[in-house]
């Protein structure tokens, strides 16, 4: 009885305690369901995203760069299909064996092998190493034949930049190459679209227009497993090729410039005097930008770098030269505008001019005798311009020169290598050299020597603005979205107004007070080329269709000593480095002018002998292509 009693009591205890447990169980299960609810219902989106992030991996492919075309639509920077060889380190079974096999198949150098090993250690195992960026077709076929033995190797067909005209446009376009870390970090667009093996613009327009040219990545989405192995391809999103960019340049003329400056150091610029379109802009010597695409070899690089003619410098924009006598049209114009001289004003040239005990020589030792403005310009009499400069003063001259674009960048921010140059005034000297202006300096400024430094493109623009009747133009190298036609530009200019595409307003761009003064300068330049005793008379073209007006210039690169003046050495007898730069600025045709140009031959000697003859050869081509260009003007409008 007692036993059974205690048994009952025990059962009661068990049941009671079981009840407590049961309640606890329900509570815990409810807790678990709550947790499930929070994960699966409340945070479902978050975890779905995470799950997709887990399983979907994107492979960005290099974007295709936009083409750059010349005014006529010829591709001057395009893309070419190339065959490449990549290694994916994580897929390689035996790296050393693979390298030996590849070395034999492709004839890789020890250096290249060392570089691959270095890359392998630097990159993540799933990043592909580019063994060869540009396989020949036969190499590509060979690799494909042995693919079974080359585990982890991936032959890739891809697209690479190509410059079909080789060195013709190097200084305009620049080139593309592998970016370094800093370049990637500096540009957000590059950062976002970068994939190994991608090339970016390193120089010139390729660099400046990077964000337009770059294009968007094609994206391949793969489902991968936990080990990163691709299981299947989900989708392929096509990339968009970068914008096509049309330049104002004419390949035929650009090519001709290159040929004319062959084996010389110098520059030629050609400009439309109304629209400001740059027709050609060639700096010599040039180099082949295609060399940089797949990594330039050390030998080739040294050859370019050590060339005494300095091919790496874009002389058109970054070369600073004393304008020499090519400045004289501006000096004359400034003097006329300021009413310091008139056409009747004459100076007697005796071959030299004395000032405060200092002698200033004219290039013609015997002197030119009594010269008027026209004759002084025609024969490039230095004495006349010393006197005019003295009467004018450097500050007034500076105002005119700067109005015509000297001392300022011509293409704004398009080329970061472009130099501003310098046209001095008294204030500048005081601020920068801390000394007062000396009258003698005004004299030599009047013949384009001294502190004055100009780029060839500035001289070209200066000439263009004289040629178009004295109106400011805005040079450009890219055909913008709203191109002003030749006729429109000319018409609006002659009405005294110019449509400014930036502010979209008609702006008074007159650079003169009296239009007559421009005419006087133009006539003087015409005389210089087309009349007897003119400095470039020998380079004239009589056919009015091609007839042009110009001004020679010879810029001293060092001070001529008394002894040298007496010796009067021939060009060949002077060391190359000491020879004068030959300059020539011109525009044509003389009736209804259309184009201006500037030519500089470094250490070429006198402008009339070395530079002006080049203009003669070039003008025929330029004028002949005018009609073609006119027809083309509305051909295609590309937005940048």
């Amino acid at each position, binding site marked *: 009885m007692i036993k059974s009693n205690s048994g009952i*009591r025990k059962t009661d205890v*068990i049941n009671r305690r079981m009840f407590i447990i049961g309640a606890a169980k329900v509570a*815990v299960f409810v807790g678990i369901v709550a947790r*499930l609810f929070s994960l*699966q219902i409340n945070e479902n989106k978050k975890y779905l995203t995470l799950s997709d992030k887990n*399983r979907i991996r994107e492979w960005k492919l290099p974007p295709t760069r936009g083409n750059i075309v010349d005014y006529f639509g010829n591709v001057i920077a395009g893309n070419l299909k190339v065959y490449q060889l990549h290694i994916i380190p994580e897929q390689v079974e035996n790296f050393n064996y693979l390298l030996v096999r590849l070395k034999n198949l492709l004839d890789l150098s020890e250096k290249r092998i060392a570089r691959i090993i270095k890359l392998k250690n630097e990159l993540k195992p799933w990043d592909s190493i580019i063994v060869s960026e540009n396989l020949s077709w036969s190499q590509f076929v060979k690799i494909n034949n042995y693919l079974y033995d080359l585990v982890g190797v991936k032959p890739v067909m891809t697209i690479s930049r190509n410059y079909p005209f080789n060195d013709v446009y190097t200084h305009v376009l620049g080139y593309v190459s592998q970016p370094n870390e800093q370049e990637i970090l500096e540009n957000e667009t590059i950062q976002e679209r970068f994939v190994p093996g991608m090339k970016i613009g390193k120089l010139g327009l390729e660099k400046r227009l990077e964000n337009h040219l770059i294009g968007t990545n094609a994206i391949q989405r793969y*489902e991968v*497993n936990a080990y990163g192995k691709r299981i299947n391809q989900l989708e392929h999103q096509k990339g968009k090729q970068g914008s096509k960019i049309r330049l104002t340049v004419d390949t035929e003329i650009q090519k001709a410039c290159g040929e004319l400056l062959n084996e010389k150091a110098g520059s030629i610029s050609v400009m439309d005097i109304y629209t400001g379109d740059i027709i050609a802009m060639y700096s010599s010597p040039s180099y082949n930008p295609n060399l940089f695409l797949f990594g330039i070899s050390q030998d080739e690089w040294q050859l370019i770098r050590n060339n005494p003619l300095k091919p790496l410098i874009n002389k058109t924009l970054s070369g600073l030269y004393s304008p020499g006598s090519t400045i004289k049209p501006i000096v004359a114009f400034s003097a006329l505008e300021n009413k310091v001289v008139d056409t009747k004003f004459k100076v007697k040239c005796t071959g030299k001019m004395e000032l405060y005990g200092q002698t200033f020589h004219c290039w013609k030792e015997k002197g030119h005798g009594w010269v008027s403005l026209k004759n002084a310009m025609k024969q490039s009499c230095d004495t006349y311009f010393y006197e005019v400069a003295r009467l004018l003063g450097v500050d007034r001259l500076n105002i005119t020169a700067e109005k015509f674009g000297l001392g300022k960048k011509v293409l704004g921010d398009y080329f970061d290598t472009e130099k501003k140059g310098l046209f001095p005034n008294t204030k500048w000297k005081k601020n920068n050299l801390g000394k007062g202006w000396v009258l003698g300096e005004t004299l030599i400024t009047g013949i384009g020597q001294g502190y004055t430094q100009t780029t060839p493109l500035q001289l070209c623009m200066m000439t263009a603005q004289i040629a178009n009747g004295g109106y400011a133009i805005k040079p450009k190298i890219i055909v913008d979205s709203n191109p002003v036609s030749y006729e429109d530009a000319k018409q609006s200019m002659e009405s005294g107004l110019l449509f400014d595409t930036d502010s979209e307003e008609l702006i008074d761009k007159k650079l003169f007070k009296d239009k007559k003064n421009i005419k006087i300068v133009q006539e003087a330049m015409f005389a210089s080329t087309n009349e007897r005793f003119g400095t470039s008379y020998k380079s004239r073209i009589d056919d009015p269709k091609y007839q042009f007006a110009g001004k020679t210039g010879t810029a001293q690169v060092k001070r001529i000593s008394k002894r040298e003046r007496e010796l009067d050495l021939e060009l060949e007898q002077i060391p190359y480095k000491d020879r004068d730069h030959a300059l020539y600025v011109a525009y044509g045709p003389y009736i209804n002018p259309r184009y201006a140009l500037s030519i500089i031959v470094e250490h070429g000697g006198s402008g009339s002998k070395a530079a002006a003859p080049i203009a003669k050869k070039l003008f025929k081509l330029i004028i002949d292509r005018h009609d073609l260009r006119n027809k083309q003007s509305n051909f295609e409008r590309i937005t940048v």
Partner: protein
Amino acid sequence: MFQHDRLNNEITLFQKIKNLDYILLISVILLSVLSVFVMYSTDGGEILFHTKNHFVKLAVFFPLMIFVAFFNIKFWHNFSYIIYLIVILLLIYVSFFGIKSSGSQRWMDLYLFVLQPSELMKVAIIMCLAKYFHRIKIENVNSFTSITIVLSIIIIPIIFVISQPDLGTSILIALSGLIILWLGGMKIKYFIYSFITFLISLPFIISFLKPYQKLRILTFLDPDRDPLGAGYQIIQSKIAIGSGGLNGKGFLKGTQSYLDFLPEKHTDFIFTLFSEEFGFIGSVGLLILYSIIIFRIVRIGAISRSNFARLFCFGYAFAIFIYIVVNLSMVLGLLPIVGSPLPIMSYGGSSMLATMIGFGIVLSAKINHKQTIA
């Protein structure tokens, strides 16, 4: 008394079959079928190694459960201590001659399959303690001698299991044992005191933990600490479950498991896969199925005449509950990762064997619920 016993002993086979708990049986069958399908999914939608073996084990152990059920509950009562001792001997054997795998020594090779005795201990300890509390007078429950004895019964196997090392199973054995102590009438204050002692000594216990165990606790506290290392399992498991949503990604469509992001998806993380593919609805459904099983076991305990059967059923129901809670909390990121399988669902022979034997004894208690045991 004897008469009565004999009467019970003379239950015919037909009556035995009739007396089986069919709701429990059907629930177990449902769970088994479900587990085969889930295993099929872990094999990537093919009948491969795991699916095949899991099915074979079910095919062997399910009849074994019925076989166990057909023995009188009195028989199991009588053999409880012996069974406990046999399992202790197996544990001793394993600690000397067991098979080593991934740093621990828990298995013995039985030619047909590899046995993990610690899994059997999860049931054996309940049997042993149920018998002890069945026999002891209620007045003596809190005596020093009995406390010493029951604590020894719990601690001895735990020493062997923890030294394998196998923290997860030791905890489950300890909890299974403690619940019988609780049900058996041990004073509540003892539980409270020992719980406080446990809390105080926790830092010391932690200092004795193996580095990987410590890491697991740290990882549990902050899984993002080392997302690709120790925290990987928890993070991936949460991603899988969370991305399942309301309806799940669909059978065989769980990307997390299919693409191998899930660790140990056949065993401890089987729920994760299930939940990813069948979502919140499926998960709650599975919990309901388990709840039915637990409830049926409790009910069988409640109608049992003998305290042995009652204690065993209540204890075993709690054990099943604890396995589920520990496993789910682990995969849901609510508890640190300790190896503990989900009953029936997880791949693993020993676990299934122990579970099925447990169900068998419960069914035996049902068949013989009128049986009293002296």
